């Protein structure tokens, strides 16, 4: 500090000699450095790895379940909008089984959730939940690979064996349903607001049409975004190679740089398309069905959409696995699943629910009947085999591939 600067500061009467001394004296500085060095020794030990725990044998499963019994309580973490507002499904479960349930809408985003539960699971501590619902994406694979999930005892899942649709069993992301069974499935397609879009939307190419400049919404999730880039190029995402990813990236990048994309949405696209900020956007089927106005339509584009599943699973540190697995199975009984499906409007893994809803519709009052009819016949809730044929699944990424994949597609939504 030069002399006249110092003088100027003093003149203002604003200097703090104590602070300045702390900043500038050698002793103060050395003291700070010493303290920092001590803490550094503490902090220098690294963060241990936890990989390679994804392989499970029957013996492991038996060992996990050996000697466990129910305690009459479940802590359940789920996504918002995945349970009736009055929680009637849970109440019915408690009434029937005597098991109480603490239900929290604790999961808003898969990656975020993973980041939050990773530390306690790594330390083999409870995350406060016995049951959670996670999408079959990158984070699910990581949870499996890290050995954070409890293997399921299928002897305790008779309803699942009996009522689950073929599409809910033995998928590539979890062969033999060792760790998970679906809660609901959903379709990623295109939603558009018919107040503004005056032509039928049938193709992914329309998301790339310059006439919708500044009116297109895309998802920021790298798997969702990457899938649509690949589908636009006619590539099946499930079988894609790294070169395909890069080609898809170029297409998506030019879509962005032409100003067609208004925004990459983590979550807010429903709000935007309902208000008319965007006119057409990538969307999840159930959201459109329940959350937006009648002006907003949902289509599965002719190039195909993707189907994903939000799956029920238990962290290995669950305190009440016996109760939790009972609830998982209970939800697969059609009469228990039907009210839930009527509320959340996603694809149910229990096809027999369709008959129940049809019956409900036949008996319903005039007010509820149209809704139930619409639901019972909706291809978004009960896709027909032809529609299923149009749907693609996510690519299962190995641990080595994940960062490379993320790097390719994350840059798009980050504007690079």
């Amino acid at each position: 500090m030069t002399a006249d600067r110092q003088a100027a500061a003093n003149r203002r009467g604003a200097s703090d000699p104590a602070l300045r001394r702390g900043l500038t004296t050698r002793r103060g500085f050395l003291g700070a450095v010493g303290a920092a060095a001590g803490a550094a020794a503490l902090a220098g030990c690294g963060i241990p790895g936890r990989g390679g725990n994804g392989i499970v044998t029957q013996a492991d499963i038996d060992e996990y379940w050996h000697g466990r019994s129910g305690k009459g309580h479940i802590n359940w973490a789920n996504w918002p909008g995945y349970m009736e507002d009055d929680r009637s499904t849970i109440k019915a479960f408690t009434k029937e089984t005597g098991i109480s349930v603490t239900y929290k809408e604790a999961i808003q985003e898969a990656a975020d959730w993973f980041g939050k539960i990773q530390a306690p699971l790594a330390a083999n501590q409870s995350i406060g939940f016995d049951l959670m619902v996670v999408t079959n994406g990158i984070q699910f694979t990581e949870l499996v690979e890290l050995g954070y999930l409890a293997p399921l005892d299928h002897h305790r899942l008779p309803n699942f064996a009996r009522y689950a649709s073929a599409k809910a069993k033995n998928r590539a992301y979890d062969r033999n349903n060792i760790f998970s069974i679906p809660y609901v499935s959903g379709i990623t397609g295109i939603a558009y607001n018919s107040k503004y879009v005056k032509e039928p939307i049938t193709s992914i190419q329309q998301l790339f049409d310059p006439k919708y400049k500044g009116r297109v919404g895309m998802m920021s999730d790298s798997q969702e975004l990457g899938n649509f880039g690949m589908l636009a190029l006619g590539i099946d995402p499930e079988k894609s190679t790294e070169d395909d990813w890069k080609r898809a990236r170029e297409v998506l990048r030019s879509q962005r740089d032409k100003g067609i994309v208004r925004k990459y949405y983590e979550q807010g696209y429903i709000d935007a398309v309902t208000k008319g900020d965007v006119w057409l956007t990538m969307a999840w089927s159930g959201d459109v069905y329940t959350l937006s106005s009648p002006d907003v339509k949902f289509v599965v584009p002719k190039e195909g959409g993707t189907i994903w599943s939000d799956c029920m699973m238990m962290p290995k540190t669950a305190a009440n696995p016996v109760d939790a697995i009972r609830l998982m199975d209970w939800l697969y009984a059609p009469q228990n699943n039907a009210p839930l499906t009527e509320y959340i409007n996603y694809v149910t893994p229990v096809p027999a629910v369709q008959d129940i809803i049809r019956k409900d519709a036949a008996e319903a009052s005039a007010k509820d009947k149209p809704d139930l009819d619409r639901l019972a016949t909706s291809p978004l809730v009960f896709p027909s085999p032809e529609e299923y044929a149009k749907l693609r699944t996510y690519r299962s990424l190995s641990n080595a591939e994940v960062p490379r994949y993320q790097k390719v597609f994350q840059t798009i939504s980050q504007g690079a």
Partner: protein
Amino acid sequence: MTTTLGKPAASAPAPAKRRRRARRDGLGLRLYTWLIIAWLMLPIAIMILFGFNDTHSKQNFQWEGFTLRWYQHLFDKGDLTRALWNSVSIALLSTVITTVLGTFVGIALGRFRFRGKGVTNLVLFAAISCPEIVMGSSLLSMFVSLDLPRGYWTVLIAHVMFSISFVAVTVRARVVGLDPKVEEAAKDLGAGPVETFRLVTLPMIMPGVLSGALLAFALSIDDFVITNFTSGSTVTFPLWVYASTRTGTPPQVNVMGTLIFAVGVLLAVVSARRGRRT
């Protein structure tokens, strides 16, 4: 943030002519100020208004008529209520802890000369000017390195951490302005250090302590960034609101926002009134 307003500036009467001119060109500035106030109010007004919106869809942005429904059903959303409760209880706890710890730091800094004072000031200053995201991410780095699970308690720890310096600085400002002779007089009259503190020092610095406490409460209940990094699976009101944009923010959120706003305004007005009286 609470307002401890200074005394009105002592203004000697200016010559009449100049004063008239001053008033005239005060008009433009006056308009400007009111425009800014209006701009600041607009979003607040919208927030309050849409708490009364008789909406029937899950999206709450189109005016569909007036209702008090959301006030009656304020606590219908169990998770939202729990989030609000988390926020309120964390704010209360952290305010109590922060006020106690921060007040002592403030008194020590305002009253004593001692070795290490410079470093303490430095840390306080750094904490006040440190970006929130850096505090949040560094705490997360530590928790991750030590394999500590995050949750309610880590949020509380973080909130106390970032509010201490504000309380300390507020109290220090008050202590510096005190006349040490009053305490000396108490000691001369035979009061021990504890009695002096309880009967003399504390009452004198009380306004500073109170406004520090209010500040700590406001900082805590409103915090988003640091909470986001340290919360684990615990959800607070701001986190819930932010996440709710996915499925549509329910009108109850507006109502709660309105109520928090009302309480904050009320507290500030009361404390300003009391501050003026003492």
